[in-house]
Structure formats: structure tokens, C-alpha cells
């Protein structure tokens, strides 16, 4: 059966330099998601969240392994059409360039007008302006239309946890390059590194 997203034995290794090939950072992921939904992604800064988004949307080349979106290898799709399958909404307004050694004419067309996967990278949430409500409704709308939404949040205020609890049904925790999926918020909280990461915010909640 074809999943919406299959991340197969994916690995990205950054070495210390071109000469010194000692790995400086290694990201590994292996998971699949078969149904539409809103997946919360959390983890400390520098743990590999944005790199994982880049690998899934095909703007970063894996060292090994593959990413299949609706059964299609994202890295074999024309670079100018990859965002028709999976789109990365960047933090602030940075633009990333797609690199490929193969010319687009030799690659596969996306055959889609609107992306199946929507990856939101730490969107700005501000309780003052009310936009949060519209953003959460939009994530739900995408899910209802059969799409898969990733919401990367780096919670540093309590309402960030309220947001993920309200809108995300499953979670992915990334720490030091290790990617672990969780079926729901409770099992995420049972995971010790996640507890340590959310530490203060959770105790505040108990208080």
C-alpha cells in the first residue's frame, strides 16, 4: 500500500569539513504516515527539524535513504515542481534553493496543482492579533481536504502547548538527529527526552 509519506532509512550526514570526513551531525529517520492529519513536530534547536523538512520537501539531498510522497520519490521530481507535492513554509521569509545535478527535463513532473504535504516551520504565533485561530482552522481545513500537515513548534510559552494539543493528533520528536514518532500527546509526554525538553512549561501547567 502507498502511504501519504514514507521516509525510508533516511540519513543525512554533515561532515566536519571536506577534508575531515568525521561526521559532525547525523540525522536519521524512518517512519511512514498513511492518513491525512496534523502532525506536531518538536525538539531542541539544532536537533535537525528544519533539515528533516528540507529532506522531505526535496530541497536538501539525503546521504542515503529516500522520501516517498504518495509513492513518488521526491528527489526524482523536477526541482521546480517539488513544491507541488510537498511545500515548506519557511521561518521568516528565507528562500532555499533546490540543488540537483540532473537537468529538470530528465526528471519526473509533479502532476499535481496543489501540494499534498504542507510543512509549517515555526510559524509566528501571537496571542495579541487573533491570527492563531485562523491558522489552526486552516490546518484543519487542509486535513479535511485529505492533506498532511506538519507543524513545527518550538514551545517557549504555555499557549504553544495549548496550540499543539488543540490541533495536532500525532507527534514527531527530534533530538540530536534522532526522529521518533508518537501516536498522541500523552505518549509524547511519556517520552523522557520530550519531558526534559518541555520541562518548565509542563510544571507550570501543573502549578
Amino acid at each position, binding site marked *: 500500500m502507498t502511504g501519504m509519506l514514507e521516509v525510508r532509512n533516511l540519513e543525512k550526514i554533515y561532515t566536519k569539513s571536506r577534508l575531515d570526513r568525521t561526521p559532525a551531525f547525523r540525522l536519521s529517520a524512518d517512519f511512514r504516515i498513511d492518513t491525512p492529519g496534523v502532525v506536531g513536530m518538536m525538539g531542541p534547536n539544532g536537533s535537525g527539524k528544519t533539515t528533516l523538512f528540507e529532506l522531505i520537501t526535496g530541497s536538501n539531498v539525503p546521504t542515503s535513504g529516500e522520501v516517498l510522497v504518495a509513492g513518488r520519490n521526491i528527489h526524482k521530481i523536477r526541482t521546480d515542481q517539488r513544491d507541488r507535492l510537498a511545500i515548506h*513554509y519557511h521561518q521568516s521569509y528565507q528562500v532555499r*534553493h533546490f540543488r540537483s545535478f540532473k537537468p529538470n527535463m530528465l526528471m519526473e513532473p509533479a502532476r499535481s496543482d496543489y501540494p499534498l504535504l504542507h510543512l509549517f516551520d515555526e510559524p509566528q504565533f501571537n*496571542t495579541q492579533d*487573533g*491570527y492563531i485561530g485562523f491558522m489552526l*482552522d486552516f490546518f484543519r481545513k487542509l486535513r479535511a481536504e485529505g492533506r498532511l500537515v506538519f507543524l513545527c513548534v518550538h514551545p517557549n510559552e504555555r499557549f504553544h502547548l495549548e496550540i499543539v494539543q488543540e490541533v495536532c493528533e500525532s507527534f514527531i520528536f527530534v533530538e540530536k538527529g534522532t526522529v521518533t514518532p508518537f501516536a498522541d500527546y500523552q505518549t509524547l509526554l511519556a517520552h523522557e527526552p520530550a519531558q526534559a525538553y518541555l520541562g518548565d512549561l509542563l510544571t507550570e501547567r501543573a502549578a
Partner: protein
Amino acid sequence: MTLFKVENIQKRFGSRVVLENISLSVEEGTVHGIMGPNGAGKTTCFHVLTGFYAPDAGRITFEGHDIAGRKPHQIARLGISRSFQIMNLFDDTVVIENVILALPEFRSRSFNVTQNVFDDTALVDRALEVLDQVGLADRAWQKAAALSYGNRRALEIAVALAADPRIVFLDEPTSGLGAEATRRLMDLIRSLRETYTIVMIEHDMRFLFELADTISVIHWGQVIAEDTPAALRANKWVARSTLGDVA
């Protein structure tokens, strides 16, 4: 009746999608608000709707005519006017001349440098009528540069109205205005809604929620919500925000 309809507009700049999938529909005689955070694509959206950029995909219809990809002056001739976020006025001329230069009667005349535009009483009268709509008739003969910021904004709207449009697009009309000038602008727009259909981008949400019949919320180049102000306000996160205090 739907006067202006936008269906699935897409606009790319290079590899970047700036407008993903914009659809909206503006009913005749209403004020349609557009709001969204900085960088959401609001102004790009205006540029596409008023012909400054051609969309890469999608349809724009005005009174049933497909206008996507037409040039700004062709679109203006159909009865679509706009103002800009950054004001475009001729400061060295008097207020009324700014309006006269925008009148279709003036624009269709052959250009004659020897004739003083102010000698043409029909043009002057028409320009005074337009200035009266925005409350500037008594300042018609002042230098445009001497106007207060709020009055400059009103003059900009007068320039947009000079073309006798059916629909007016206003890009952040309150930007740079103080509280008192914003209140006066609110009264002005309220008075214009009798005559014109208005589409307005606005950062000042209180202003927009007061005036708009329908609001499209744009973010990530897409319409993420669209409803009446009352329905949008019912959202619990809106109720928690500073907007929740708006009566």
C-alpha cells in the same frame, strides 16, 4: 450580485510561490476587507487583481469579463481604481489639479500646453464634486504639499475616485494616520460605501472589523479564513486577542 471574482490565482517569483491559491468574491455595494500578517502576500495580491502583475494561473472576472493579465490602464478603464500603500501625489501643484489630472474627461482630451486646465469650468466643477466627496472641497486651491497626512490620504482616495470607478481598491488606507485622522477616514469610507464597492487591505483590524461586510484573511499566499467580522470574532483565539475587545 458578484461584481468582482477571483478564482484560484497563483503567482510565482522564480522558484517561490508568493500566491498559492487565492479565491475571493466581492459583492456589489459591499466593503470587502483583506487582512494578514506582514509578508502574507496582500500587496502582491492587490497588484495581481489590479493588473500590475499578471497571474501565472487562475481567473479574475469583473462584471463577467475575464481581466486576468490585462494591463493596469485597460483595467482602470473598465471601472477599477486603486490607491497605493505609498502615496503618489503631485506635491507642487494645488489639490484640485491632482484630481483634474486623474479625470477621464481630462485624460481623453488632446494635450494642449497653451491651455490652462483651470479655465475649463466643466473640469474644475467635476473635480470639486470629487473633492467634496472626500471633504476636501474647501482646500481645493491649497498646495498639495501643505495638506495634513490624513488629508493627503483623503486626496489619494479622491484621485482614485476621479476615474468614476465601480470598484475601488485601497491599500492600507490608515497607514501612518493618528487616531483622529483614522476616525475621520472611517467616516469617509462609510460615506463612500453608498456609491462604490470597496476592497481594502488593512492592518488596523479594529478599523477593518468596523467597516467590512466580509473579510478574507490571507497568510502564506492563501486565503486561510473568510467570513463576516462577527463570525471571525467568534473564534476563541480571536476572543482572547486584543481584537476580542472590539464591540
